[in-house]
């Protein structure tokens, strides 16, 4: 970790009208590394990602410290945030079937990121987008550029999404379950492309997932979240040595090839986990 790009201290998020905070005092830092955030549905992992981009309408976000590179995120105006989103920080969404605009050409949607952030002609943006489509290993980039989302496969769609979000060369990319909607066979392909680009360009990556194996293989560090809190932070390689009973429970609940037909362990959630902070 050469340089810290993100510092989060005591982040609290409450949705409008909710009785309690969805995220309750989360703190972590991120360098030019790949950080995994794992947890069950509703643990607040996606909420953290969207809060960083300030894309949680109606939610109240407070933090003792929320620094992104040289920027103090809470103090930025919406207008300043427009220059951060897409340009400095972006996010890869889950399912390209829904996250691409169905009636606009795929390539134009990619080029839009560039047009939004750089002064350039449409032709220039098109060239940039084509080059980026090739960088995510789309062979027939000229043809794909003019296709509509319903004409391309899920794996292709997710590569387009990656191209769109990396085009402006951001410092930080949040990948919100980037492969949950894909077939197992293309999952690895897409992850390898993302991983390669993130490493080559020195981009910080936050990988939000509930797939422990994926996080183990593609991340340097892992945060385990439960009920809006981080219960444990580990190096990805040490995931098996996790101490917290929740993490151990998650690991035990994974099916294994050759593991026999015995019923999988069921998480037993203890109320005291709600209060402790790792």
């Amino acid at each position, binding site marked *: 970790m050469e340089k810290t790009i993100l510092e989060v201290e005591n982040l609290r998020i409450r949705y409008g009208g909710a009785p309690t905070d969805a995220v309750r005092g989360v703190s972590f830092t991120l360098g030019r590394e790949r950080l995994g955030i794992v947890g069950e549905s509703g643990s607040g992992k996606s909420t953290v990602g969207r809060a960083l981009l300030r894309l949680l309408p109606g939610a109240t976000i407070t933090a003792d410290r929320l620094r992104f590179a040289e920027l103090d995120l809470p103090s930025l105006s919406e207008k300043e945030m427009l220059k951060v989103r897409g340009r400095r920080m972006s996010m890869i969404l*889950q399912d390209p079937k829904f996250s691409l605009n169905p009636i606009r050409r795929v390539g134009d949607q990619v080029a839009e990121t560039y047009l939004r952030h750089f002064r350039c002609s449409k032709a220039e943006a098109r060239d940039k987008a084509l080059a980026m489509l090739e960088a995510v290993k789309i062979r027939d980039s000229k043809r794909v550029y003019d296709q509509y989302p319903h004409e391309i496969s899920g794996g292709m769609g997710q590569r387009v999404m990656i191209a769109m979000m990396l085009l402006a060369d951001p410092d930080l990319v949040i990948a919100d379950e980037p492969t949950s909607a894909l077939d197992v066979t293309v999952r690895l392909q897409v992850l390898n492309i993302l991983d390669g680009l993130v490493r080559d360009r020195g981009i910080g990556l936050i990988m939000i997932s509930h797939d422990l194996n994926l996080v183990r293989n593609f991340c340097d560090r892992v945060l385990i979240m439960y009920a809006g809190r981080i219960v444990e932070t580990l190096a990805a390689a040490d995931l098996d040595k996790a101490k917290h009973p929740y993490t151990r429970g998650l690991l035990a609940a994974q099916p294994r090839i050759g593991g026999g037909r015995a019923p999988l362990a069921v998480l037993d959630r203890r109320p005291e986990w709600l209060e402790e902070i790792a």
Partner: protein
Amino acid sequence: MSLRRIRFYGAAGQIGTIAVTLLGLLLLTFFIGRLMPADPVRAIVGEDATRETYEQVYRSLGLDRPLWEQFFYYLGDVFTGNFGTSIRTGQPVIQDILHVMPATIELATFAILIGAGLGVPLGVLAAVNKDRWPDHVVRVFSLFGHSMPIFWTGMIALIVFYAHLGLVGGSGRMDQFYIGLVEERTGFLLIDSLVAGEMDVFWSAVNHIILPAALLGYSSSAYITRMTRSFMLDQLGQEYVTTARVKGLSRSQTIWQHAFINIRVQLVTIIALAYGSLLEGAVLIETVFAWPGFGQYLTSNLITGDMNAVMTCVLIVGIIFIGLNLLSDVLYRIFDPRTR
């Protein structure tokens, strides 16, 4: 199958559908003509005709032949443009209709422009500000438009804007003074007066159309607003909207360049339908404003039992709707790549 061939079959299927719908429509109008209690023979010969005269006319109308044969005669008449003579006016029905239709088309077109021009932006505004005050204001505004009886608002508007403020022309299509001044070419007064270079007549016509069109537009905007709001809410909840925001697009860019273009298809459909019901004629407004349009014509024919005219009117309304459906299908294909 090649794309071109798919398109060809798509178009052929469409033409087939239209043909079937049209046939069904003709069957309907034919049976309306036959089943209505009005006696077409009696309407022609009058109450005190002799039995022989009655029989003669009965036969000359072909009413002694089997029903299916009569239907084919009717089909033949329709396709040769023979819709019979109106008993009420003594003129060919088609000529009467060509005379009243432009007045209604003019009014309906003006009204739908106002209705859509008002309804669509208001619907978007309400959706974007869901459950906040602009949403409530818009909802109340369109509820008024929807629920106030238009003959009443029509009269109130005439009293206020015409009688008291003198901002607009009163009833009729133009000031009395100008009637007959412009030669009728298309029947569209706004066009005819422009072609003739009679600017005074043109402005008088604009003055007269603006109030009834605004009232009709306001009442149809209620529906358009409500639908736009719900279409838009649907889209704003989609993931691609988040994608656009993540890319750095502003809220308004996202709304107009991403979400709005996705509701165009649905908008076209409902606006076409609203336009269709305006073209059917707005009897109440036409009556209040003494507008010599299709609605008034249809109503007086129904009252006098002028079946030739009624059948033709029903047929025309049906054809208008078939045409508008076709138009929205075509626009569908243009706006949505998934249907190509």
